């Protein structure tokens, strides 16, 4: 009985989360522009979307910023976390305090503060400023996820390796890194997600003629939603779903090999 109730609860939440998305997908095939009536099946919104240069470049901008920001923030974040072990606890808490600021602070304040900085330095806003901003707000997420792993590192194993004659780097790569890799991966994933999803900070640090998906959609919404956007939502959703399935299939295949 309890199991059944639990399943029902899960189902309700899942419906709440997915029904709206599915509605959009249905609408993306609706040949009528109106949301209120079904005008027959069509693929024209998809065709329009694919020939839409603005969407293509926004998508490209979004992805390249997310990928680059993830790479930079993961590297910087991980190195800093490891370095923290060797720092005095006072310095460590100062660094963590500062790092927490962009996470705890509101996006709008972070966005505005960066905008003020770029204006002050006379850096014209565009790709670079958005990237810098994204790296800045991503590093804390990486550190948040790597730090607990670093804290739990078992140094006895590391020291034992040294005692057994391993070089420092070798011992590091063999004993410490494997322990923190899961943290790095989830940190990078989180950074990537945050970057893809960000609207507010991008909104304040973008320049003329440069749109990411988020800012593009915001503009579209203010001008009235076109069905192409539904097609876009449907495509993004399917891509996300497929990626997820690949991610989950891959480890399973590997365990089978073993």
């Amino acid at each position: 009985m309890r199991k059944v109730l639990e399943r029902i609860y899960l189902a309700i939440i899942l419906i709440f989360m997915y029904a709206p998305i599915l509605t959009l997908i249905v609408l993306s095939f609706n040949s009528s522009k109106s949301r209120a009536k079904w005008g027959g099946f069509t693929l024209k919104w998809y065709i329009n979307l694919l020939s839409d240069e603005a969407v293509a470049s926004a998508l490209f901008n979004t992805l390249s910023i997310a990928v680059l920001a993830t790479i930079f923030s993961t590297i910087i974040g991980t190195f800093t976390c490891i370095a923290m072990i060797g720092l005095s606890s006072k310095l460590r808490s100062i660094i963590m305090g500062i790092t927490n600021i962009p996470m705890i602070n509101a996006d709008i304040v972070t966005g505005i503060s960066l905008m003020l900085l770029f204006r002050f330095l006379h850096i014209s806003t565009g790709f670079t400023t958005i990237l810098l901003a994204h790296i800045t707000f991503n590093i804390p997420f990486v550190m948040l996820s790597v730090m607990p792993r670093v804290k739990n590192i078992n140094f006895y194993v590391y020291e034992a390796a040294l005692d057994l004659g391993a070089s420092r780097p070798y011992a590091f790569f063999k004993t410490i890194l494997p322990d923190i890799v899961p943290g790095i991966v989830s940190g990078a994933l989180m950074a990537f997600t945050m970057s893809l999803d960000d609207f507010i900070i991008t909104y304040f640090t973008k320049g003329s003629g440069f749109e990411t998906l988020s800012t593009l959609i915001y503009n579209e919404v203010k001008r009235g939603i076109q069905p192409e956007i539904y097609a876009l939502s449907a495509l993004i959703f399917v891509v996300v779903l497929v990626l997820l399935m690949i991610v989950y299939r891959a480890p399973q295949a590997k365990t089978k090999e073993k």
Partner: protein
Amino acid sequence: MKLFKSKRSAGLMASPYIAWAIIFIVVPLCMVFYYGLTSADGGFTFDNIATIMKPGYIKALKRSIVLAIISTLVCFLLSYPLGMILASMKLKKNAYIVTLFILPMWMNFLLRTLTWMTLLEGKGVINTILEFLHLPTLNIINTNGAIVLGMVYNFLPFMILPIYNALNRIDENVINAARDLGAGTVQTFLRITLPLSMPGILSGITMVFIPALTTFAISTMLGGSKILLIGNIIEQEFTQLYDWHLGSGLSIVLMIFIILNMIIENLSDNGGNN
């Protein structure tokens, strides 16, 4: 701990980030404070911060706080049972069920919000269906309710994830031990599960409350610009009214609330540890 040969080499390794943090976190924040505490002619003033007390502004702030609290509460009430169910399922192999609940996070934030615009509009999907079934239509677009709905929908994964993680980490043996010692279900929950999941709850609350408090896109899209939140006002000061001083001043006010939230969180966190 002999990972580093000396403190200096550790410092060297941390220095790029320290420099980064100073340039891109500390200095920009100082600039917000500078603008917020000066007037257009450069003199020191508290006027920008005091503006929050003007009728239009204070109303927006109060509304933001109320809506953010409601949204956070709803998210929590939805997520906690969900987290418990998921944690009890012992999903070692098929963790994809968990991912299913946070998957919408990978959909663009604005697309997620736009979805509800489409659904809730006067001639939107829900009303069309209701009309078809000869049921009374729903008029919730451009109301506080629509905004809360949008917030909950958008931020729910941010609550689910930390709560699930915290619950999942609880050692089953602890719970079993409590049971063995004669604790009932309720007692076990109140004295073991809840306190142990507190860090997850708190980080979930922060991750929902702060964006809900400061959003401007959700209120613009689902509120028809009829409902002004503090985030909208700050956004307008920068993008329409070109008053950086006032915008920064209001941002400082916003930060005060964020810090308050942090203090409360730390206090209850310590309480939980005891």
